[in-house]
């Protein structure tokens, strides 16, 4: 059982139980990997290229399926959840954010998910404007996401995730295309999200960024957890 600093029990957000996975028959990436990720905690996943960091995120989200073992998301067996249900619980930022932009304009990218949820027009406008301000993309409102720069796409993709108000965030290399100023903004947003009591998993190579947020650091090497430690920020 894990406890917060005030003694309260931490809720398990993601549990991987004896997960085995391989991309091909000859090389097994994960062999009986077990891991518990807690809510309200920022967990950083570090590791070299090809160590399985991104694969771990994809396995949790159900983009790829494990050969053996099971994954539990907020006390629910992920096998019984479809991708849409997982997406409502966990916001997942792809390594390449272009893959998760769909709409014709930046505003529509933020608003369509709220429209589908049946929000009122004024509420949608308010929420979308708030997100655009937060991520400094207000001036791109009518532009097609197709023409945005890498950093702008990354900010838009993250804004589009947060507008859905997920209970947990998994961010795969969120700082790749960001300049120092935008990294600082992202830092503040993540801190704010964490202060709301929500958990974040940062999959990254950017150690300095990761360590400013980390409360737990997990290092993966050859499909094994080689380091797992709590961290004081």
């Amino acid at each position, binding site marked *: 059982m894990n406890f917060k600093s005030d003694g309260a029990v931490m809720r398990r957000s993601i549990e991987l139980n004896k997960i085995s996975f391989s991309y091909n028959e000859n090389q097994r990436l994960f062999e009986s990997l077990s891991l518990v990720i807690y809510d309200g905690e920022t967990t950083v996943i570090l590791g070299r290229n090809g160590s399985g960091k991104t694969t771990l995120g994809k396995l949790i*989200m159900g*983009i790829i399926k494990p050969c053996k073992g099971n994954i539990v998301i907020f006390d629910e067996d992920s096998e019984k959840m*479809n*991708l*849409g*249900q*997982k*997406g*409502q619980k966990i916001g*997942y930022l*792809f390594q390449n954010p*272009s*893959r*998760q*932009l*769909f*709409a*014709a304009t930046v505003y529509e990218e933020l608003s*369509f*998910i709220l*429209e*589908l949820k049946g929000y009122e027009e004024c509420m949608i406008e308010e929420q979308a404007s708030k997100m655009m301000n937060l991520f400094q993309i207000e001036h791109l409102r009518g532009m097609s996401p*197709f023409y945005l720069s890498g950093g702008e796409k990354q900010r838009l993709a993250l804004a*589009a*995730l947060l507008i*859905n108000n*997920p209970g947990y965030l998994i961010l795969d290399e969120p700082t790749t295309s960001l300049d120092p100023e935008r990294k600082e903004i992202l830092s503040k947003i993540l801190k704010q999200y964490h202060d709301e009591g929500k958990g974040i998993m940062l999959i990254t190579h950017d150690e300095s960024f990761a360590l400013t947020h980390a409360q737990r650091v997990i290092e993966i090497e050859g499909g094994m957890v080689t380091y797992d430690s709590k961290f004081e920020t």
Partner: protein
Amino acid sequence: MIPNSKLDPRSKLSMVMSLSGMGVLINDIRIMIGILFITIIILKLLKVSILKILRKFKRILYMIVVLVIVQSIFFKGGNPIIAVGSVAIISDMGLQKAAAFALRIGIVIASASILTTSSYRDIVQGLVQWKMPYEIAFMVSVAIRFLPTFMEEFKDASVALQLRGVDFEKIPVKKKLTVYSYLFFPVVSNAILKAQELSIAMETRAFRAYPFRTSYLILKIKPLDYIIIAVSFFTAVAGITLYYT
């Protein structure tokens, strides 16, 4: 069994053109079933897994089913099978049209799968040796080469959209079309980007810099290929002519 590896890609192209041409131009359900049956036999002889094709096109099967239903509902005329008051919802003619549509799509997809038994390089060479301009043959090859990639990207886009919290099963019917339209944006935009990058890469490798191209690969047509090409041509011409006279 047809010795697949020894068949010239031009004979396969002839078979595809003949079968899909008849599938598109002939509108008789019984004949279309026959064409589909022959196509499946050819695929079996070429050792193409029908199950694999069905699995590949599983995602668009849903779209085909929806189109078939729409066709049968909106077709005016024929004797009503299901009617609300005096308004015919489904008629026998409507069902016939829908079945013809489904068969036509089936014939085109199945016959095109014959080409998967040749490498795309061989197919380009076949077209070039048929005196097709290299630029056009190359474009055809690029289209063939990128089709699986587009299918993959379509699948990725669908996964990414669902991970944004869109539960396809729970979307109201009237909003379903809007949501599905979102899937096309990343696929089309990526296709445009890929085309731009590919054209630049080709220019840097001196594509069209010389008026004539030579090739290390020269296809040699054999008697069996002549027979297949002739049979494909005459069957298509005879079938279409007999149908329209």
